[in-house]
């Protein structure tokens, strides 16, 4: 009994202590509520939080050879809390002069006096959010942070930095329409637009609480939601080929004063787009060419003679032989009760085979063949022709990654406007809408033994260097027609280049052979009809592949409305095709042995750097290991000062309203620079600029012609 009682009194004691503890808790709660209540309620009113987005870093776009095509970097808006208490009057008066001096020296936009005056006024007004400078680079920011007053520290000095992301295309014009952009609320363009969800990443969230006027502090040490950075995208674009494609296209367009043009290079086996150039004259007709539209993807129209490939295919599939012949009726025929058609070659070609008709692109012969085999009333009828064409899949969109692909349309017998002349016109590539890329896909299929692959622009998707998605060739049509027909079509395309009098015989005699087809479509000028205002508009094109015996690449060049008198596909589009093919052939087939770098450098001095943009020059010098010194970067045009010991470069100063010195520049850079200034460039020769017809420093007259001699 004693033992139990002995335990029990202790239990009671502890229990009582607990009860007391419990009442103390209630008392404390009551005290907080009733005595201190008003104070804490007031504090509650001051509590403010806001949720801020932590913007995920947008992924980069790389070219196939690893160059950056699009990247993001932060730029800053600098503001000043001019009312910062820690900047006393004494400190301000002591340091303002040197601060203003350094700001003026760094940015060069305002004088020392101006900076001093503005900062003093901001301080007088107690402006807590005075805008010092917009769009400051990180390098500049670092310098500003070291300046007097600001170097006192983040809050004390009063400097407020606001980071924002800036998207930059290091190669500017190059493939810019294909790289594209994404802007909220606008139609997505190019790879940026299509792969936006991959590139964008996922924004994080962080809750901030107010700690004092204008100052916010994260509520917790970690983010509420961590941001996930966007993935990188490696495109199939090869920057070197792209460069050549664009320069060659630009040259030809400037030369012939064309409206718009496109050049696309595709790898036969995989469908990878190695280069895609789109140039278009600005709407104000001032001959400045830029990538305003993705012509290759978005512009569907009558392809013209390049479509004869499919007409020939339909004929061959129906049993016609390349050796079957037909009369060209003196180069002039009428069909369907009086519709006239003539050959480009006056007088026609006599009686020619299908093979020859393709080589010389005879309209009369093609109409003759097609009418004979497919006209209404024949055994097969126009439906058979249409069916052969549709079997390839050309009437359907390719479904490429880039948004804005125009829908192809090839008229068929169900169409209400179908009439007797429709079939003959179809065979010549009219009464239809096809984009250049769709045409290219068909030619590529022929080069690929009949397998039609989907053109694509993306090699792989990377997450911090790790491959997370690898693009594979996608087959759209396993066999667009019989293998025998493919062989015959390839002989025909080879004939276009190789045979005497073939429409593209100017592309003959290279180290490699090209096969293809020219096209010169006469098109309607703004719905005024084919011959509205007595003016014809031509669309010159060349589509083909090379090397002819072992096709590696297919390519289409299409240029609209050359206005300098010449308009045939071989003259206008052929040279662009050749330049691209030359470049690809010389770089990709590894004809040369690798040079011995060391011995090369030992014997020669340092190379002279062609005048170009600083970013490019620096990259080249870095990559080749040439010691160099260039105070500039980015789009500042440089020139080489000396090649002694190291490559010394300086900025070439050019003012906007004066003609710049383009001596020593490559064609692309010079064209870009001058055309953008409104000059009309006449380029002669190859290489770098040797002389220019207008002396540097002359005031620019818009539209004035400047002759550049390259050597």
């Amino acid at each position, binding site marked *: *009994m004693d*033992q*139990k009682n*002995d*335990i*029990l009194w*202790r*239990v*009671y004691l*502890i*229990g009582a202590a*607990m*009860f007391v*503890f*419990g009442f*103390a*808790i*209630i008392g*404390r*709660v*009551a005290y*907080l*509520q009733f005595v*201190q*209540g008003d*104070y*804490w*309620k007031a*504090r*509650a009113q001051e*509590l403010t*939080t806001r949720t801020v987005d932590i913007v995920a870093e947008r992924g980069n776009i790389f070219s196939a050879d690893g160059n950056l095509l699009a990247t993001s970097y932060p730029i800053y808006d600098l503001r000043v809390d001019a009312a910062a208490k820690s900047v006393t009057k004494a400190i301000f008066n002591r340091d303002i002069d040197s601060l203003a001096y350094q700001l003026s020296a760094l940015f060069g936009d305002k004088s020392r006096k101006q900076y001093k005056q503005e900062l003093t006024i901001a301080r007088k007004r107690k402006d807590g959010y005075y805008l010092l400078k917009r769009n400051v680079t990180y390098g500049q920011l670092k310098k500003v942070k070291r300046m007097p007053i600001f170097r006192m520290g983040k809050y004390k000095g009063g400097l407020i930095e606001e980071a924002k992301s800036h998207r930059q295309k290091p190669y500017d014009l190059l493939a810019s329409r294909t790289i594209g952009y994404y802007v909220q609320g606008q139609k997505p363009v190019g790879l940026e637009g299509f792969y936006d969800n991959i590139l964008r990443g996922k924004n994080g969230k962080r*809750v901030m*609480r107010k*700690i004092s006027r204008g100052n916010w502090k994260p*509520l*917790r040490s*970690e983010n*509420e*939601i961590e941001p996930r950075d966007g993935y990188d995208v490696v495109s199939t674009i090869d920057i070197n080929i792209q460069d050549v494609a664009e320069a060659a296209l630009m040259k030809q367009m400037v030369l012939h004063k064309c409206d718009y043009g496109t050049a696309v290079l595709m790898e036969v086996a995989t469908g990878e787009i190695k280069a895609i150039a789109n140039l278009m004259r600005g709407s104000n007709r001032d001959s400045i060419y830029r990538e305003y539209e993705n012509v290759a993807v978005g512009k569907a129209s009558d392809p013209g003679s390049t479509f004869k490939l499919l007409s020939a295919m339909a004929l061959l599939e129906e049993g016609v032989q390349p050796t079957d012949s037909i009369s060209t009726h003196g180069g002039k025929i009428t069909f369907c009760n009086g519709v006239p058609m003539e050959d480009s070659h006056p007088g026609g070609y006599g009686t020619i085979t299908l093979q020859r008709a393709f080589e010389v692109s005879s309209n009369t012969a093609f109409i003759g063949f097609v009418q004979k085999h497919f006209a209404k009333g024949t055994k097969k009828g126009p439906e058979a022709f249409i069916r052969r064409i549709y079997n390839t899949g050309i009437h359907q969109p390719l479904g490429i990654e880039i948004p804005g692909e125009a829908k192809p349309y090839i008229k068929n017998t169900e169409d209400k406007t179908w009439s007797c002349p429709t079939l003959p016109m179809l065979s010549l590539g009219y009464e239809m809408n096809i984009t250049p890329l769709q045409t290219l896909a068909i030619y590529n299929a022929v080069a690929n033994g009949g397998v039609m692959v989907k053109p694509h622009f993306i090699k792989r998707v990377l997450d911090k260097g790790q491959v997370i998605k690898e693009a594979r060739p996608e087959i759209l049509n396993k066999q667009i027609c019989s293998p025998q027909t493919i062989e015959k079509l390839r002989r025909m395309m080879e004939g276009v280049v190789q045979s005497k009098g073939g429409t593209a015989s100017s592309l003959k005699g290279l180290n490699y052979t090209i096969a293809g087809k020219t096209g010169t479509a006469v098109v309607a000028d703004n719905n005024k009809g084919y011959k509205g205002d007595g003016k014809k508009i031509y669309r010159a094109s060349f589509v083909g592949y090379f090397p002819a015996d072992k096709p590696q690449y297919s390519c289409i060049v299409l240029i609209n409305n050359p206005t300098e008198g010449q308009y045939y596909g071989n003259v206008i589009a052929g040279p662009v095709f050749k330049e691209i093919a030359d470049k690809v052939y010389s770089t990709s087939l590894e004809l040369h042995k690798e040079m011995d770098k060391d011995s090369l450098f030992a014997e020669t001095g340092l190379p002279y750097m062609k005048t170009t943009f600083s970013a490019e020059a620096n990259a080249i010098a870095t990559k080749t290991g040439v010691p160099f010194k260039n105070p500039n970067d980015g789009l500042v045009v440089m020139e080489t000062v000396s090649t002694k010991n190291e490559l010394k470069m300086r900025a070439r100063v050019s003012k906007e309203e004066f003609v710049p010195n383009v001596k020593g520049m490559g064609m692309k850079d010079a064209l870009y620079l001058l055309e953008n200034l409104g000059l009309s460039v006449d380029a002669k020769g190859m290489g770098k600029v040797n002389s220019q017809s207008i002396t540097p420093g002359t005031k620019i007259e818009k539209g004035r012609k400047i002759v550049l001699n390259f050597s």
Partner: protein
Amino acid sequence: MNLLDTYLKGDKVIWLVVILLSVISILAVYSSSGALAYRFQGGNTEYYLYKHAFIVVFGLGLMWSFHQIRYKYFSALSQIGLIVSVLLLLLTFFMGANVNNASRWLVIPGINITFQPSDIAKLSLIMYLARVMSRSTDKLQDQRWVSLNIFLPVFGICALVVRSNFSTAAVLFVISLILLFMGRLSFKYLFQMLGIALTGVVFIVLLGKAFPDSMPRLKTWEARIESFAKGKSGDMDSEEQYQVEQAKIAIATGGIVGKGPGNSTQRNFLPQSSSDFIYAIIIEEYGLIGGVIVLFLYLILLFRGIRIVIKCNRTFGALLAMGCTFGLIFQGMINMAVAINLFPVTGQPLPFLSMGGTSIWFASIAVGIILSVSRQDDADMVEEAAIGSEGNSELATD
């Protein structure tokens, strides 16, 4: 009622209290875990609701299972528990999940629930002390025996816990002290223990000062005590200060009747709103009335626990029930005291109410043990009544 009698044995009031606390817990956790859900589960608040509900229901299952065990087995179990505890604590010491520089958690593989080995240690230590104090009353004056069988286990466990979690070690020590006091350990030894404990604390502080790496948590303790001492006069810069301020605002704005379920605004500001500071959120949503009800539920638990001790005829059962009851209540009071800033910030969860890991499961087991004692008391009484008892038997020493 028959069904209830068959399956829920022991003190029905305790059952009711625990079930009420569980319901309140699910409500409060669902409301306060909103911020957590937003952070870690992409806004899926149900995630924490379901996870917590599962833990609560599983806890009730544990409670039921343990209350079925005859409590004399806990005596033997305590020794195994103590050994397991030491092993687990050593394991945590070397490889525990490092949360806030405090490696006090182990992750149970498979179900991905963290648990603190110190919870097992606490329970085992209570059972063990109840065992030695009831078995060996004759040796309780022997200095050597006491040192070996009482001081060593108590200080050994506390030493293993203290590096990562000072407050748990302190609570463990105080509960042990109370239990030994109730078990009639002489004051001489109780004062000896206090002396050793104080010496130990001084030693730890000196060690931490000399080798900061050896005591990574020392800085946190200092900051917490400092900010508690400074009170509201200090600036809001320290994390602890900020938590305490937010908790006070929660309590003050809750008023007498509260803002209503799910209407807490402070849950967005209080970093530990669903565990350490859940009492503040309960007062914010359910007012002073809610706070008092929760407190009274614990006091009822305490009262019923004492009642079981009064009825209990065996020393082991009495001490076991008392140790478990006081352990729970003491920890709960510490948590509440922290939430209302009567105490420096510690990481003690509120038994049955706080979300997080397995603390609820060990609280459930503790109550299961209390109920086991109560169940057998009832059975004994029935038996005695049937036999026609000759009067109260002496407290047996089991």
